[in-house]
């Protein structure tokens, strides 16, 4: 069986599955059970400064988006950082770490944006023997309004400054957690790198309103007739997270900066995708909140089976494997031609491909009187929409035409690689001539 052991910025864990800083990692009782269930590491829910702890609302703090069969696809929350006394958290962290030396235990931190506050909290956690710190520059609600969380994460200069303080006042490995509530994720990542961060983790939650109560006319989750934006997470945010991870992994400025991937990881496959795009490990929250700690078992068995099948002996062989294949649109091969193909044996004749193709744009699928659906190669632009709407996995596939074959739609032979930068329709090509 493949070896899932990972070494992330010098922090070893038996597998790349860490629980993200969130409600499931708020206390010793939970973290111990998470480790027993098999989680490789835990990022303890964010600690704040010494003093009276923050308070949470006493009404609903989560909102949800469901898919078919009421499957939870997206969750948002308005919970704040830990509302338990600092001393209790520190005592518990130390106790857990003493008993689980082979697991990663990271402490998430969020204190006011001044050097003394950071120096103080770093000194206080020194004694816990935790493996590292994660700077919470991500939370988009509650703390941001107090000048913390995403209020810092949205200003690259602040990120750099705080990271520098942390590296100056602590020898612990430092992970900077990034907010996605920003237009270019590379900027905060670059700032973290400049500040001396050992790694970045992303994404934190996305500003969101999950739904509106149409009787009370207020957003959900609703407290006493009012609602506010909360941080969105779960399977729904994975595509956004994957893109941001890839952007950092392939940027010239941040290339090689270790990444802890976060955002909707629910199965082994999600984790493998994050890792292929450059994440050295993944952090999970919503899946554990939805299904319990036990889901890590499927992640472990699935990833190790996948790695075995691919002949990979360590996770390092997977990390970053897809990064070279992430490119910009202008470099895509415009001479690669595919056609959709419907497997008539697998087809259940629902007609969804037909509706999608007919009413979207291309009218490239025919329908017979006895409900046989076939692709018309002379119309098909290989847009993939039929594949995406088909309820039967593998029923419709995209078949790439070999070089030299004639594209029935254009009448042209499939040629060599050529992209937009040299295309005759590109005005800038003409301008250069």
């Amino acid at each position, binding site marked *: 069986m493949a070896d899932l052991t990972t070494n992330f910025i010098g922090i070893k864990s038996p597998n790349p599955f860490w629980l993200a800083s969130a409600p499931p990692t708020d206390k010793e009782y939970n973290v111990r059970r998470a480790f027993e269930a098999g989680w490789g590491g835990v990022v303890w829910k964010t600690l704040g400064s010494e003093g009276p702890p923050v308070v949470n609302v006493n009404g609903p703090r989560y909102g949800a988006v469901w898919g078919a*069969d009421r499957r939870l696809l997206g969750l948002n929350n308005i919970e704040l950082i830990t509302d338990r006394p600092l001393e209790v958290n520190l005592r518990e962290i130390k106790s857990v770490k003493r008993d689980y030396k082979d697991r990663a235990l990271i402490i998430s931190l969020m204190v006011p944006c001044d050097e003394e506050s950071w120096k103080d909290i770093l000194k206080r956690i020194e004694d816990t023997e935790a493996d590292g710190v994660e700077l919470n520059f991500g939370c988009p609600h509650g703390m941001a309004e107090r000048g913390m969380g995403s209020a810092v994460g949205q200003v690259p200069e602040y990120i750099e400054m705080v990271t520098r303080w942390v590296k100056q006042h602590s020898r612990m490995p430092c992970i900077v957690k990034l907010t996605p509530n920003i237009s270019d994720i590379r900027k905060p990542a670059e700032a973290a790198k400049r500040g001396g961060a050992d790694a970045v983790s992303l994404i934190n939650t996305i500003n969101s309103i999950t739904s509106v109560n149409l009787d009370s006319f207020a957003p959900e989750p609703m407290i006493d007739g009012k609602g506010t934006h909360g941080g969105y997470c779960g399977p729904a945010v994975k595509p956004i997270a994957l893109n941001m991870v890839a952007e950092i992994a392939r940027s010239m400025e941040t290339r090689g900066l270790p990444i802890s991937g976060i955002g909707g990881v629910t*199965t*082994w*496959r999600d984790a493998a995708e994050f890792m292929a795009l450059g994440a050295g490990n993944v952090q999970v929250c919503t899946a554990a909140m939805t*299904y*319990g700690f*036990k*889901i890590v*078992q*499927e992640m472990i*068995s*699935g990833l190790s*089976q*996948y790695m075995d099948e691919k002949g990979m002996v360590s996770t390092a062989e997977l990390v970053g494997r897809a990064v070279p294949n992430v490119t910009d649109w202008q470099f895509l091969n415009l001479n690669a031609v595919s056609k959709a193909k419907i497997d008539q044996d*697998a087809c259940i004749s629902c007609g969804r491909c037909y509706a999608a193709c007919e009413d979207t744009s291309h009218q490239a699928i025919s329908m017979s009187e006895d409900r046989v659906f076939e692709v018309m190669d002379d119309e098909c632009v290989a847009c993939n929409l039929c594949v995406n709407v088909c309820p*039967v*996995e*593998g*029923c419709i596939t995209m078949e790439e035409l070999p070089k030299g074959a004639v594209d029935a739609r254009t009448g042209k032979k499939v040629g060599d690689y050529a992209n937009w930068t040299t295309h005759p329709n590109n005005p800038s090509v003409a301008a250069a001539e």
Partner: protein
Amino acid sequence: MSNTPLTPGIVSGRLVAEAYAHNFDDLEPVLDGHEAHVAADRCYFCHDAPCMTACPTSIDIPLFIRQIATGTPEAAAKTIWDQNILGGMCARVCPTEQLCEEVCVREVAEGKPVEIGRLQRFATDRVMAAGVHPFTRAAPTGKRVAVVGAGPAGLAAAHRLALHGHDVVMMDRREKPGGLNEYGIASYKAPHDFAQAEVEWLLKIGGITVQTGVELGRDVTLDGLRAEYDAVFLGIGLGGVNALRAAGEDIAGVRDAVDFIAELRQQPDKAKLAIGRDVVVIGGGMTAVDAAVQSRLLGAQNVTIVYRRGQEKMSASVHEQDHAQQVGVRIICNAAPVEVIGKGGKVSAVEFAYTQDGPEGLKLLDDTFTLAADQVFKAIGQTLVAPEGMAGPKLDVQPLARVWAGGDCAQGGEDLTVTAVAEGRDAAEAIHINLMGAVR
């Protein structure tokens, strides 16, 4: 085809060849990839899942279904086999509607459970078809264990013992290993010689020597085994059958249902099997249903199950009863045989008395009826044939050092393959602890 379903007497070839092939093929074929995906998607991954609690072998059902859902049926199969090495057979024969699927929260909510049994088969069939046996033996311990009986309990015990590095000699009185999986299950539930294929696959663990045609009490003795081996596991099942205790039960044409089922399983050409035109099956359990259904599938014109108590007390599941009725078996309840009537030395009818079940027991009423019958199957329970020096009704091995028992012959046995597997497995773990404790 010389005979038809109407031909009187016990004759073979009542049906055309294609009918036999159709009747004895897989009753419920394996799910294809799409079906499995849709079925797996319905599982809620319940916490402390009721299905898992209901499974006698405690298979981690939510986990294996999630593994199917995430495209790793191979991992799912491993999850199943970790708890139940005969997961392939159990997927076919378990009364899931009384076990895991009965308590599935979607059964409770929608009357339609997640298809756990069929998903289990999907995963295990796939890995078995690939010839993969995902277990490796521990280093040899030098300990030798005798496993008597190569049925579900013995097979499960042998595999777990071999897994732990012990050398196992598994003996069985029959010609082939498999026990009830090979000889006692309706053919259409495990066609294509699945029982033998599963045994062969199971033996891939290594370290298990199979000795067939070896009977306890005839070829070996318990004392001899205890002297020769470090431990003995008895999974000998129930070798005897209950008598009808009605007049005329020795008349030609009256037969034990278990023998009929075994013969049927071993005959590859079902057209050669003789069956009556008017078949009466006496009993209310799975054996009765299997005998009755297969009588119909062999072309019997009239098949009737007669059970002495109310239908709700039949130990055959409702699902099985429904299936029997769908293939045309008639079920009569609250009637007990009083006499098997012969004509010319052969059975011609059975006389029954209606019964009344009360607090003081079952009472035969004066009202009687007679069913025409040219063949009668007795399916009124099996009994332990205890080894010398031991007594029934179930084996008590407590007083014997280094002897364990499991399956139908043992105290907890309840006539279910899956229970036998659990007991064999657990006995093996107990034996392992016992043997290795002695080493230290």
